[in-house]
């Protein structure tokens, strides 16, 4: 259900986003959906990237992009023959497309990882898991950010 509040928050974030873009220094290169795809391609190679098995948890609406909790969990029995080898997180609009790349193995017990990331803008965040059989699985979340990270001047 879309409430009046949602609409207002959405409008505010759009306005904030537009304002920030206009003061962006020309030197600040930004990752684009294309560069995120390129970064993912580098990890996945020619293997197909399928949706499923992975759950990326991020709050859908973030007030402060400087620190955003995220959790990636991957369905896997975590046995020596069938386990999660790696978990990668990518983003669309931060200056760089990579966020974190973690290597784990059957000794992890659970294919799970939590950390905190920065978000420079409202964008799509994507998690990719590599399983021991060589397959790649993904999940993605769209996040709305009201105060962006990376661009503020240090106090």
């Amino acid at each position, binding site marked *: 259900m879309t409430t009046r509040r949602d609409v207002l928050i959405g409008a505010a974030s759009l306005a904030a986003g537009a304002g920030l873009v206009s003061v962006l220094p020309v030197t600040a290169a930004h990752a684009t959906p294309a560069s995120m795809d390129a970064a993912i391609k580098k990890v996945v190679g020619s293997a197909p990237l399928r949706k499923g098995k992975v759950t990326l948890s991020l709050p859908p609406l973030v007030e402060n992009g400087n620190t955003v909790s995220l959790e990636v969990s991957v369905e896997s029995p975590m046995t020596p023959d069938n386990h999660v080898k790696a978990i990668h997180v990518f983003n669309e609009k931060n200056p760089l497309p990579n966020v974190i790349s973690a290597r784990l193995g059957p000794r992890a017990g659970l294919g799970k990882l939590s*950390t905190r990331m920065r978000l420079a803008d409202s964008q799509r965040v994507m998690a990719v898991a590599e399983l021991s059989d060589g397959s790649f699985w993904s999940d993605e979340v769209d996040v709305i950010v009201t105060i962006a990270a*990376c661009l503020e001047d240090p106090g």
Partner: protein
Amino acid sequence: MARTLINVPKTAKKGEIIAIKTLISHEMETGYRHDNLGKAIPRDIISLFVCTYNGQEIFRAELHPAIAANPFIAFNTVATASGTLEFKWTGDNGFSATEQATITVE
């Protein structure tokens, strides 16, 4: 030496999956900000985190500037034997920090 906060259970049953939480104080300067004079602030981040359990690597993460200041990393492992978990963070400008935690497995 950077301040760290490690959360590992003191005791665990053999085969139990335990949660490990780590936090380290670090600016994680992205390299994309400018100071008051408009000069670029150079990148200064932790780029690698490794956890070993009795000398064997169980978890490794490459961090990028998109990781928030004071990196928090939480993961899991199977309690296999009593011993020591060692946590090591390395990064730009020769940054290195090591921390240990002991666990008793029954």
